[in-house]
């Protein structure tokens, strides 16, 4: 597999599963350019989906260290009772509202990274999100995001219009930079808008002609990308999408974003890197335990992830979903039955290539002596080691020092989330 990943067809960024394919087929595939390939096509096209839990998710209530009495001692009102925890390995367990993910754990496609975070000690959402997206903790002036730097570094896919897509109204920091990337708020609204399809077609044609004949420079190339994407999307037909295998996405922005990511993956539209946000984790007040505020957010989160995996079915073979959050929260609950800004948190890695069924990373324990500044879960895995591993082992990135400047990439530090 390591070799086949390098057999790229320039225009589509496809790596074919088996070697020795008819060269004519390769040529056809190259020629087909942006046309979606039939879903039966045998190809290996690794996809990475990054999800940002903005607001700092409480890693300790998401993946509960129920085997540690300190957890219960420090959180008398908000700890998840032992009887409710969905046990994973006898020590850690999922929050009950993440029960939908348990089958993925059981079939070894879900791994948990605990005690992961930034080497920078900032407890500012703003700084910490910024650092996690720029990939350069402590350095604010980094102009681009690490996902975009990955795209710059591996240019094999550069002419695929849907290669890097952020679902949301703006291009997030993580995808900002010189490599082309799309911000799509809603697939159904991407393109020219007009009340009727005939009006849309007319406008599309007119602007396409305008830009083809009158635009220069970047305006010309970007508009070409845009119309190719619109054209491709028309064949994908986002209005008519029916999730596969009876998958049922939760209502709301996050569920819709996950569904549209699945849709683009299944459409063979050339998607390689997808990103979306999921908010509402800043639980300073009345966080709740098995039920309550955080539980409600986790329920939506877990159901959307489970629906995504179910929808993709066999396709999950090529997909890795990586969750991240800027930091974790205090070990001890605060005076308002909530938690304050902490340090390390937990991240989930999900998908076919994942070395699942394990809680990875070195667990520092909750003993006050082991905590960061005496109060927070200590960081034992630098987030860049996990992100770097996913880029290297899943997407085939070869030069991580270009993507995470300032760190010497060292596979020995990879936490082992993706099968080598």
């Amino acid at each position, binding site marked *: 597999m390591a070799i086949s990943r390098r057999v790229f067809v320039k225009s589509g960024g496809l790596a074919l599963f088996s070697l020795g394919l008819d060269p004519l087929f390769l040529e056809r595939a190259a020629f087909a350019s942006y046309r979606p390939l039939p879903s039966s096509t045998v190809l290996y096209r690794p996809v990475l989906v990054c999800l940002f839990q903005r607001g700092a998710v409480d890693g300790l209530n998401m993946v509960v260290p129920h085997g540690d009495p300190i957890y219960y001692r420090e959180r008398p009102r908000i700890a998840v009772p032992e009887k409710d925890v969905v046990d994973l390995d006898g020590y850690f367990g999922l929050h009950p509202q993440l029960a939908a993910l348990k089958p993925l754990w059981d079939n070894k496609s879900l791994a948990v990274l605990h005690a992961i975070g930034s080497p920078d000690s*900032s*407890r*500012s*959402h*703003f700084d910490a*999100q*910024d650092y996690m997206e*720029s990939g350069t903790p402590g350095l*604010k*002036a*980094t*102009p681009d995001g690490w996902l975009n730097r990955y795209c710059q570094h591996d240019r094999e896919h550069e002419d695929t*219009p849907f290669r890097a897509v952020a679902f949301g*109204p*703006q*291009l997030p*920091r993580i995808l900002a930079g*010189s490599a*082309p*990337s*799309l*911000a*799509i*708020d809603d697939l159904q609204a*991407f*393109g*020219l*808008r*007009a009340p009727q399809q005939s009006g849309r077609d*007319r*406008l599309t*044609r*007119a*602007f396409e*002609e*305008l*830009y083809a*004949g*009158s*635009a*220069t*420079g*970047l*305006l*010309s190339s*970007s*508009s070409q*990308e*845009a119309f190719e*994407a*619109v054209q491709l999307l028309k064949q994908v037909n986002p209005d008519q999408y029916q999730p596969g295998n009876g998958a049922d996405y939760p209502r709301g922005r996050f569920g819709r974003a996950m569904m549209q990511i699945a849709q683009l993956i299944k459409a063979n539209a050339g998607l390689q890197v997808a990103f979306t946000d999921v908010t509402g984790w*800043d639980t*300073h*007040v*009345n966080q709740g335990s098995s039920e309550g505020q955080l539980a409600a957010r986790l329920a939506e989160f877990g159901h959307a992830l489970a629906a995504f995996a179910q929808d993709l079915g066999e396709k999950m073979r090529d997909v890795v979903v990586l969750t991240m959050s800027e930091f974790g929260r205090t070990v001890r609950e*605060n005076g*308002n039955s909530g938690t*304050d*800004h902490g340090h390390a948190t937990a991240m989930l890695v999900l998908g076919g290539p994942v070395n699942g069924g394990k809680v990875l990373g070195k667990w520092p324990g909750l003993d006050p002596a082991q905590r960061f500044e005496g109060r927070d879960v200590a960081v034992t895995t630098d987030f860049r080691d996990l992100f770097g591993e996913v880029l290297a082992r899943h997407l085939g990135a070869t030069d991580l020092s270009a993507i995470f400047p300032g760190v010497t990439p060292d596979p020995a530090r990879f936490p082992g989330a993706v099968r080598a």
Partner: protein
Amino acid sequence: MLRPYTSCLVRRHNSARADTERAVISALTPRDSALHALNRLAYGPRPGDIERVAALGVMKWIDRQLKPDKIDDGLLAAREHQFTLLDYDRGKLARLYVEMQRERRDRKRDARAAMDSTVREQRGRRMASEFQELAVVRAALSERQLYEVMVDFWTNHFNVFFGKGADRFLMPDYVEHTIRPHVLGRFEDLLIATAKSPAMMFYLDNWQSVAPGSSPPNALEPSPPFPLSALRRGGHGVRRRVPTGINENYARELLELHTLGVDGGYTQEDVINVARIFTGWSIEPPRQGGDFQFHDWAHDEGEKEVLGVTFPAGHGMDEGARLLKMLANHPATMHHVSRKLCQRFVNDEPPDGCVDDAVAAWRRSGGDLREVLHAIFHGPDFWAPLNTRAKVKTPLEFVVSALRAVGADPDTTPRLAQVVARLGEPLYLHVAPDGYPEREDAWVNSGALLDRMNAGVALAAGTLPGVTVSLDSLIPATGDAEQLILQVNDKILDGTMTENTKDVIRRQTSDIGDPVAARALAVGLAIGGPEFQRQ
């Protein structure tokens, strides 16, 4: 980068400058030079502007724009009255914010959480949206166009992120009273104003930078200058954490972004010493106005050295002022900031000649920004045909120039600011301290281009939210396709329409019987099309 030979001449023989200037400008027609000046010093021409500027003489118009106080701006002043935000000073905004946060918390804590948001919360949200919309309205309506362009430039150069905690109530004051009064003054004054501004101090964390080992007098635990709720939204942790040492954040960005530039020749030692010099520069609690406050007790009184210059021991706030003056007049600063100005006004990759001219004017005038701009606008590079229409409009420039082109009237709702945000430039919401980029590759991407096309079509059809458009007085509806194309080229594209665009409009409108619909389509294609994206 190719540079017209003449620019070398100008720099070597200043006496020949005036003649060369005339010669260079005359390469453009009076109409073209008026259009170029309106594209760069203003947010594009309104109907009739090109003729007015050409008739007055473009250099005369530029000189007038450099003296905005002498330009009557009554129309904008009347419109500003509709923005209640301007009735709120920093203290009033801070109190509103504090109370709003408390009410929101109470509401969340209330078991009957279905309660609606309070009147105060709604007012707070309206303030935030008015703040962003006001930027669009001023850019569109002000007669002092260059002044508004410079407000945008400096707000961006000294970027503050509106979404970070207390900056939600500090920032309107920052734009009104820190940036706006200084945009055409001396760079030094502007730099000092930003350094002392609570908004910048909070954004780049200097308010909590203290000398290691220092503690407040009377052994009192200092209360945090901001309500916990404000800190939580992006500040440091909610516990009262007494700062225990220096914070390098402001020091680094001051050197790297505000003054010297990343290659300006400073070291990490310099950054640390700059941070030490600014220890104690802090903010008073918002209930007392949230103003600048210097804390003697937090200041590091030891000796420091920055860029080889010694700052002797025993000084207080005065050494920060001394440092800012030194940085403001440092050659690296002159070059870094002049280059950014040339990038804004001349070309994304500015020719060395115009940067050199700007630096020379800076040196001559002691950093008088009016003189620096004057040098750029009178230099040959500004007028070189190579540099006209060489820049792609930012989302703000695109939206505002489109409004101006059709003579549209924006309202006070946040909807136009939302259009700007959708195109990629949510105002005051650039998180990183470097501000929005000036280069086209930051703005041109396929999704954003499609959105520009949609915005153009909607504006022409009168369906763009937040604005009233009447095309009748500008381009009368006509069944004559050639007449329509002529008018759209003249009024919207200022004569820059390509033959291809004419063909496309001709074809696309040929089967539309309704002249009003044909006009809307033609204008929409023109605004969403490639010619209009350039300036």
